[in-house]
C-alpha cells in the first residue's frame, strides 16, 4: 500500500496525498509498455498527475514499431509481455538508433538474477511491483537527471555562440538578441537541449504545441526552417538541423573543420 495509514482495524487509506510530490523540473514524454490494463492506467494516472505525458503500449512489438517514427524521454518497461519479453525489447532498443533511450524496468519479477540481468543488458533502473507512486516518480526523474536530460534543468543554456535564458525567454546569438515567436523559442530550446538526439515529429509537436494541438507537418517544417535561418543553424556555422525522412529532426553540432556528408536517411 502506498504509505497507507491504518485508521482502525477495518478502515484504511490507500494512497498518499497528491500534494506529497513536488512539481517536476521538466515534463517528460514517457512510453509505458505494460500488458495489464489496470496497471497501465494506474502508472499513467500517477505520472500524468506528476506532470508528465504518457503513451501506453500493451505489446513489446507495438513499441518497437512506434520507435521507427516516435521518440520518448524515457521508457517504463514490463518484463512479462504477451509477445516478446521486456528484455528482448531492451536489447532491440539498445541496438537501434534510439539506443540512448533511458529505460526503467517495472516488473513483478523479483529474483536477484532477473534484476542483475536487466541492469547488465542496459536497463537504467529496476523496480519490483507493486511499486509505490512517489518512489516511481522519483526514480524516473532521477534517471532523467543522470542522463542526457540534465540540460533540461538549466534556466540558462550557453552553447557555442548562443545564450538562452529560459526565464526571460530570450535567445542571444553572438550577444545579439534573436527575435523569435513564442513557439519558435520553445522549438529552439527543445533542439538546443537535445543536441545530437533524434526527435520525432510527434515528440516535437507534443512538447512545443501541447498534446492536443493539431499541427500539420508543413507548419512544423516552417517553424524549423525559420529557426534554422534565424539562429544560423547551418553547416557553415558549425551546426546542422537535419530532417530525418519520415521521422523528425536532429540538431547536430559539427566539427567546424570537417563538413559532414548527409546520411542516406536524411533529406
Amino acid at each position, binding site marked *: *500500500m*502506498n504509505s*497507507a495509514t491504518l*485508521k482502525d482495524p*477495518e*478502515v*484504511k*487509506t*490507500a*494512497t498518499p*496525498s*497528491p500534494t506529497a510530490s513536488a512539481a517536476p523540473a521538466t515534463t517528460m514524454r514517457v512510453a509505458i509498455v505494460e500488458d*495489464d*490494463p*489496470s*496497471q497501465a*492506467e*494506474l502508472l499513467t*494516472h500517477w505520472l500524468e*498527475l506528476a506532470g508528465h505525458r504518457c503513451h501506453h503500449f500493451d505489446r513489446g512489438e507495438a513499441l518497437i514499431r512506434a520507435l521507427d517514427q516516435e521518440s520518448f524521454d524515457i521508457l517504463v518497461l514490463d518484463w*512479462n509481455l504477451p509477445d516478446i519479453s521486456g528484455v528482448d525489447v531492451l536489447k532491440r532498443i539498445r541496438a537501434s538508433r534510439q539506443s540512448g533511450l533511458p529505460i526503467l524496468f517495472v*516488473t*513483478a519479477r523479483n529474483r536477484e538474477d532477473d534484476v542483475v540481468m536487466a541492469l547488465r543488458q542496459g536497463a537504467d533502473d529496476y523496480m519490483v*511491483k*507493486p*511499486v*509505490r*507512486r512517489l518512489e516511481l516518480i522519483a526514480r524516473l526523474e532521477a534517471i532523467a537527471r543522470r542522463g542526457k536530460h540534465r540540460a533540461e534543468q538549466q534556466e540558462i543554456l550557453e552553447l557555442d555562440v548562443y545564450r538562452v535564458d529560459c526565464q526571460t525567454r530570450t535567445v542571444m546569438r553572438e550577444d545579439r538578441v534573436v527575435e523569435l515567436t513564442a513557439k519558435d523559442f520553445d522549438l529552439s530550446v527543445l533542439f538546443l537541449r537535445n543536441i545530437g538526439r533524434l526527435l520525432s515529429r510527434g515528440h516535437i509537436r507534443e512538447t512545443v504545441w501541447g498534446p492536443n494541438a493539431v499541427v500539420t507537418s508543413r507548419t512544423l517544417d516552417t517553424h524549423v526552417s525559420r529557426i534554422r535561418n534565424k539562429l544560423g543553424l547551418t553547416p557553415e556555422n558549425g551546426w546542422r538541423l537535419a530532417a530525418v525522412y519520415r521521422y523528425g529532426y536532429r540538431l547536430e553540432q559539427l566539427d567546424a573543420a570537417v563538413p559532414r556528408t548527409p546520411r542516406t536517411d536524411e533529406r
Partner: protein
Amino acid sequence: MTALIRGGPEDSERANVLPVLTVRVEKDLETLVNRFLARKREDLDRVRAALATRDFETIRRIGHDLKGAGEGFGFPELSAFGAALERAAIARNERALKEQLAAVEQFLSRLRVTFR
C-alpha cells in the same frame, strides 16, 4: 488479513462472520479503482474456468498481474492473493488454487471502498 490469505476451511468459516472491510481511497482514483475491481471479479471467473480445464498458465498470469497491481490500488491483500495464486499455479496445486480462489472471492465480497 493473514487468516484470509492462508484460506483454510476453518478460516473460511470464521470469515463468514467477519465484518465488512472498508477501504478509503483518494477520490481521484475512483474511476480507476472501480474499473480495477470489476476486472478482478471477471478474472475470478477466468480462474474458475481455467481450473476446470487445468489451464495453470492462465491462472499463473492472472495471479502474476494481481500480485503486481493490487497494492498500487490500495489493496495489499490482493497482491498477496495474487502471489499465492501464482505460486500454486506454478506448483499445479489444485487444492491450494481452490482455497486461494475462495479466499479472494471472500475478500472481494467483504470489501467496501469509499472515496474521499
